[in-house]
């Protein structure tokens, strides 16, 4: 295995792990709020979270550039203040993977939370628990398998992300070239063997992920 293949692999794992963590932090509360609360703009939030699931990844990536690029809505003030931009760094790969994976977690987790009997939450309220404590002690533990399944799917999605990552982080070998991007480069430059190794690795990983998610899903049901 070449140094480049290895670096693509470690980068991909690092990006996927961090994106999954970010998903857990953002996605689980988001799924809970979407499942349990009616508020203004709920449909909009739902739409925005789900959109990356159906948009071409390059379109999502384009929006991320508009938002975070050096001249983006958030990126420009940041660049003006610090002289640093997230674009074309490996952080950008994490952001892209996070956004692309988020709908998978939110939708799976939300379905799991939806299926928790509301009477259990009401019972917890009459037994002295605040909504926050009820979520921690009752709702989320009971939705655990669904949430874990969502996290596994999010991890898989983050690991395989290509289009949005390419747009926001570029394809810089050793810095932002994750496995899917490295495969693309390898095929383009005729490095058949490198491509084959990476393809086999990703395929195997995806199979494992699907089996695990399926088991968790089955137990959640």
């Amino acid at each position: 295995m070449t140094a480049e293949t290895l670096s693509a692999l470690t980068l991909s794992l690092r990006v996927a792990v961090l994106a999954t963590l970010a998903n857990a932090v953002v996605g689980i509360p988001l799924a809970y709020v979407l499942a349990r609360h009616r508020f203004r703009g709920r449909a909009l939030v739902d739409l925005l979270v789900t959109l990356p699931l159906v948009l071409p990844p390059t379109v999502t990536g384009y929006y991320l550039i508009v938002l975070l690029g050096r001249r983006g809505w958030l990126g420009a003030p940041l660049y003006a203040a610090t002289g640093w931009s997230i674009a074309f760094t490996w952080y950008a790969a994490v952001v892209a993977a996070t956004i692309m994976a988020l709908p998978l977690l939110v939708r799976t987790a939300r379905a799991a939370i939806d299926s928790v009997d509301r009477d259990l939450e009401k019972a917890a309220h009459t037994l002295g628990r605040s909504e926050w404590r009820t979520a921690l002690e009752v709702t989320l533990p009971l939705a655990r398998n669904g949430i874990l399944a969502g996290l596994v799917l999010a991890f898989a999605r983050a690991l395989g992300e290509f289009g949005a990552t390419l747009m926001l982080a570029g394809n810089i070998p050793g810095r932002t070239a994750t496995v899917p991007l490295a495969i693309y480069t390898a095929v383009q430059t005729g490095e058949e063997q490198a491509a084959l190794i990476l393809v086999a690795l990703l395929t195997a990983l995806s199979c494992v992920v699907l089996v695990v998610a399926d088991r968790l899903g089955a137990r959640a049901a």
Partner: protein
Amino acid sequence: MSARLEVRLVKRLPDFTLDVAWTADGGVAALFGPSGAGKTLTLQCMAGLLRPDAGYIVVDGRVLFDAAAGMDVPPQARRVGYVFQGYALFPHLTVADNVGFGLRGRPQPARARRVAEVIERLGLAGLERRYPRELSGGQRQRVALGRALAIDPALLLLDEPLSALDAPLRQTLRNELRGVLGEWGTAAVVVTHDFTEAYRLGDRIVVYDGGRVVQSAPRAELLWQPASESVARIMGIPNVLHGTVVKATPDRIQLRWRGQSLEAVNSPTRSYLPPPGAPIAFFIRPEYVRLIRKDRVVADPRHHMNLMRGEVVLDEDFGTTWTLRIRLDEPGPPAQGAWDLEVEVPHLVYEILDIERDRRWEFSIHRGSIHVLPA
């Protein structure tokens, strides 16, 4: 002394309005009525799980909710135990953890003592480490009761506590539940759509219909004096009939029905005095109709009050009793489709009188068994 429980609630939903007021003097109040009458909605308001649009909820002088005063104690602070329909036990917690769930604020030793006490009193000893899915229906009910009672509630609310059970178990557990409620002495409100259940469990029965209270009375009073025809129908009383007033005095009402002249007892306390010729609703309890034995005396209007004659057109075996549908020997359409009266007789009577073969009977009804329903 004021009532222990004072409830006045208005809650408007898109396609339903709850507008009720009732009081109860401790003991068990049974909210009885058809599904969708607003009984569970009332419980949820009392527990603070739903905010009424107007009204008040007072338990033992403690105001839990008062719309006018802007008072709304959150469910966490109401000290109201709630036994949910289907029990809503936490499936990921053991029996002991379910029972102790509401005791989190207490120090660990006190908590463990209380859990042990409740488990002991409800006969759940030995099941502490089981999970809800490993329990029988009856055990689940007791865990749900224990979880609600462990917090030493000022008020216990039970939503259809027996509906999750099979019929044979239901009767046993109804008696068991009555025992627990009596023993713990906590003021309780039970929701049920089954009149037998309401009667067995409730000291007072509050009859709900379409989001309103149509009658609230001690259970015996409700049984013998439904306030109106609609209450009688909700209670499922058979033989609700319509006649015409001949003469009404404070203690007797004479009426005509299906060509018969009937005499009924009026209730002096109710002082219901409809004018002659007015339509009147009444009911006759099927188990209070007396068939007259042909081998003993000759039927005589002087000895047999409200004497009638008719034919059994249909009979149904209910195991311990037979229900006979009798059509009177009178011209004109029968009062209830193909028959006029439903009569219930024990199996023994059915056999002795050989009703299976002998279909023509004379029967009488004591005036005290004809109950007038005020309009």
